[in-house]
């Protein structure tokens, strides 16, 4: 009985978590299981990933959760809305693959999703 329960729990947790990798400019890399439905920013904050500040708490108002998305994942994300692109204008060293991590919602499709944090956020 216990084993069945444990297996059930394992499957439940396994299917609702997605592996997200956070890299920094020094080449350090951390892979975290983030709960589906959370943002890539929240995954970082809850797991003490340095390099993402998120001063405004995810209201798309500060550009301090700015990340560079690995090229191959760019097309797999919903397009950034105008408000997000406007905020990225303010970010430190924006590039073509810049996104705000508070606007990327984790789901099964993003398994292995990788972002690099900029040298600094502000």
């Amino acid at each position, binding site marked *: 009985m216990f084993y069945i329960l444990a297996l059930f729990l394992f499957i439940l947790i396994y299917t609702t978590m997605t592996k997200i990798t956070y890299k920094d400019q020094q080449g350090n890399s951390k892979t975290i299981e983030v709960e589906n439905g959370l943002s890539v920013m929240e995954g970082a904050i809850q797991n003490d990933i340095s390099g993402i500040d998120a*001063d*405004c*708490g995810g*209201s798309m*108002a*500060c*550009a*301090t959760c700015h990340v560079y998305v690995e090229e191959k994942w760019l097309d797999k994300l919903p397009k950034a809305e*105008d408000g997000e*692109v*406007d905020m990225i*204008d*303010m970010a*430190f*060293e*924006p*590039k*073509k693959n810049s996104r705000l991590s508070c606007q990327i919602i984790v789901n099964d499709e993003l398994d292995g999703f990788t972002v690099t944090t900029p040298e*600094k956020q*502000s």
Partner: protein
Amino acid sequence: MIKTDVIIIGAGPVGLFAIHQLGIKGLKAVVIDNLDKPGGQCIELYPDKPIYDIPAVPECTGKELTDRLLEQTKPFKTKFYLNERVEEVKSKEDNWSIKTSNNNEFIAPNIIIAGGVGSFEPRKLSLKDTDKFEGKSIFYSVKNKNDFKNKNISIFGGGDSALDWALELSKLSKITLIHRRKDFRGAQHTLEEIRKLEKQGKIIIKTPFQLDNIEGNEKIQSITIKDENGKSEKIETDIILSFFGLVMKLGPIAEWGLNMDKKNISVNPNNFETNKKGIFAVGDICTYPGKLKLILSGFHEVALASVECFKRARPNEKYKFEFTTSSKVIKARLGKK
């Protein structure tokens, strides 16, 4: 030296409601904020964006919320010290003394820190040497237009500040407006004006370009800008004006000896006092088990902190809990009959 009952640091929604909660208890306060107007993040980050979780207010914008709070605090005639940052906090017998960036000094038995995520400051350029030129050839705001006469000015940014100043200063100087993408987010009618001037050769627009290098020793001589594909261009420049919005910096708060948890101040959730007697922290800047960074949480926090402030400011009086609906004393303080 200005003496008062409570010094409120931060004029955001929670700092403003502090005036009210202290005022109905008969306490005098002053408010200090680094921005040029009250409202904090509500006014600086989302004046036009809707807020849906203020009790009994189904929907209002950051600007509307600020205006209503200012209206609510009017009876208390509280003095605001704006464009000032608190630099120093010192204990003086049973009081706290504070010194601001404008050299104003205040003394009070209580300080309420309603500082949000810290004070707003312009987001600075991050190339090396930019510090060296700051205030001489690199500016983040325009104080006196006449300092920007007959110059080669390169303006960076895509928002209203960048567009407005490009338009305004084009009457006095040669302007190059540089932005990292083709679209500008500033007001369309300003952009149309600028496009007109571009056609007449009065303003040069460079997109999609970002700053790559600054050349010059004592003064800036030129700058190099680069596009996404690495193509670069040199632009003769005397002055750089950079408008990349504001960032929030905790600033000197971190050095006041308060117990901190990351960027937040740890408080006792019974009265929102910090580890220093008489210094309170409320709103986004404070933390305790279960803390939620909501405006409504800040309102609750400051209501409780104001009771403790009363006890410290009026040690010989007994605190009496009263309802605004029925208390004659409170009604008199609010100017109601």
